[in-house]
């Protein structure tokens, strides 16, 4: 589908709160890509012939109305679902049906739309869970965790990036909703991933705090050396402000795959994605 850029973009989208960071590197081969992926749930086709690619240095947002197939696509990209047809490649390897643990060790991390924590673990323990994986210490049955300086140092670094340093000894279930969200993401970052998929990282966070959360995430991603970020987000202000590229899905197909300036200049896409002139945020 071809879309002609126009100047009829939403006022909110035209004035993002922060300038979108430019891609650092344009690598030759994609970090992750789907090739003609289809996914059926019984007779219902959730995704049809979806081919996308995300390269090193990119911040790519996936948008679309409810039921467009965004979560299905993310679940395919992270191995939670197996495509009915087509392939998913991460760093050149077909990962269709590969378990999350393997993906985590290969450099992929994800967060979920609904906040995922370990209620009875402290903030430090939650982050340490990922750090242990990263440092390959998971089978140490008898070495005392509190005395492992390497793990403690890395946990403190990660907590510092996300402003959780003062909450290290707090049980996760006692954190505020915003802190839980940050912890969820922080634990994913603790894997030192090359690619991170953020499924609505600001859902449940107040509008005033959304940009602060995103700024923290992007800053942490840079500090942690994350090579690419895929964001699933409904808030078009955030999408406009942070993305290098926006992929719009509609009824299971790729409607557009454009840079923000072209994306928001197209009224047809905007209308399909966010509805007819009701404001850009949905």
């Amino acid at each position: 589908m071809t879309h002609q850029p126009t100047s009829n973009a939403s006022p909110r989208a035209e004035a993002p709160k922060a300038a979108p960071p430019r891609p650092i590197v344009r690598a030759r081969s994609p970090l992750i890509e789907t090739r003609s992926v289809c996914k059926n749930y019984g007779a219902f086709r959730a995704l049809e012939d979806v081919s996308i690619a995300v390269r090193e240095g990119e911040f790519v947002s996936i948008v679309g109305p409810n039921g467009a197939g965004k979560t299905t696509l993310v679940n395919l990209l992270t191995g939670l679902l197996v495509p009915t047809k087509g392939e998913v490649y991460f760093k050149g390897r077909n990962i269709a049906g590969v378990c999350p643990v393997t993906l985590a060790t290969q450099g992929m991390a994800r967060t979920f739309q609904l906040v995922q924590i370990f209620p009875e673990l402290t903030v430090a323990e939650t982050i340490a869970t990922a750090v242990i994986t990263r440092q390959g210490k998971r089978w140490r049955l008898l070495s005392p965790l509190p005395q492992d300086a390497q793990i403690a140092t890395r946990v403190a670094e990660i907590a510092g990036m996300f402003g959780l340093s003062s909450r290290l000894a707090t049980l996760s279930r006692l954190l505020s909703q915003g802190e839980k969200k940050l912890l969820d993401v922080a634990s994913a970052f603790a894997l030192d991933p090359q690619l991170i998929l953020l499924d609505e990282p600001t859902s449940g966070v107040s509008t005033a705090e959304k940009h602060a959360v995103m700024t923290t995430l992007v800053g942490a991603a840079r500090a942690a050396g994350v090579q690419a970020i895929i964001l699933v987000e409904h808030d078009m202000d955030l999408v406009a402000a942070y993305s290098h590229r926006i992929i719009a899905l509609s009824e299971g197909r790729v409607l557009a795959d454009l840079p923000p300036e072209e994306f928001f200049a197209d009224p047809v896409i905007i209308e399909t994605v966010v509805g007819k002139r009701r404001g850009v945020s949905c």
Partner: protein
Amino acid sequence: MKQGSALLLVAIAAGALALVPILAPPFYANLLVPFYGYAIALLGFNLLFGYTGLLSFGHALFLGLGAYTAAVLAGLWGIKEFEVVLLAAALVGLLLALPLGWLAVRYRGIFFGMLTLAYGMLAHAVLFKFYHLTGGDSGMRVPRMHLLGLEFAAYNKIELLAGPFYYYCLTLCALAALLMWRIVRSPFGLHLRSLRDNAQKAEYLGVRAHQFRLAAFAISGIYGAVGGTILGFRTGLADPELVYWTHSGHLVFMTVLGGFSSLLGPVIGALALTLLQDQLQSLTQYWRLVLGAILALVVIFLPRGLAGLAFDVGRLHGRRSASSTANTTETA
């Protein structure tokens, strides 16, 4: 409760237990020997339940396995060294736990519980029906064995149990608790707890759910078999009732009574139930009814068990002490 205070309490409790054979009649020391067997088994059981989130309704299988291993090695093969029997029981526990666990840990919640219950029932049926191999309902005799190479020939059975064997079991229990303490505080232990809390999230953080649950199952199997060996030595018998589902329920009862959210909760539960059961049996023939009512009350009013209660009392006492110190300072 701070770690230092907890360690002090554990040291005091261990010291008090060490004085039982000296200060109390042999009856009480003899009564406490099975407590040590249960305590060791429950340390392993709670790694599976309290730390990994898998509730087994067939864990008595491993206690029976330990007792039958002792019966075969000491009774049939004439191996008299208890340490060799213990090691063999641990190995047999591990070897059986691996295939059983490999299948069972694919499931969670009620499905895991039912599958482990089925294991226990199958084991009971085998032990009960294969009379020529297992002695059927009569079981197999577990003869006396040497402890640390010493025969203790001058001691009768009661003296042996209430003396050398008591201290042997106390030491073994302390070592088992120390080892488990290291395990639950290790990176491995943290990964188990992450699986208990949120398995999907844990897997996305690189925690290998199946492997870790299987490892926990195997360790709990080893602890169960070691505990069962002590029970077999004490009664001198390995019989099918050891693996019956009501015995598995007994383990769950002890764990809930003591509290499964802490390392030593189930040990406290084992001690409390051993003493309580003895007292109730001497008071009334309806002791099972009373035990059932107590369990119901514990679940309703003390969901964290006796260990949780002790923790709360300790914390309250700490706060009151701090408050009274502050008041004294203000007054001064």
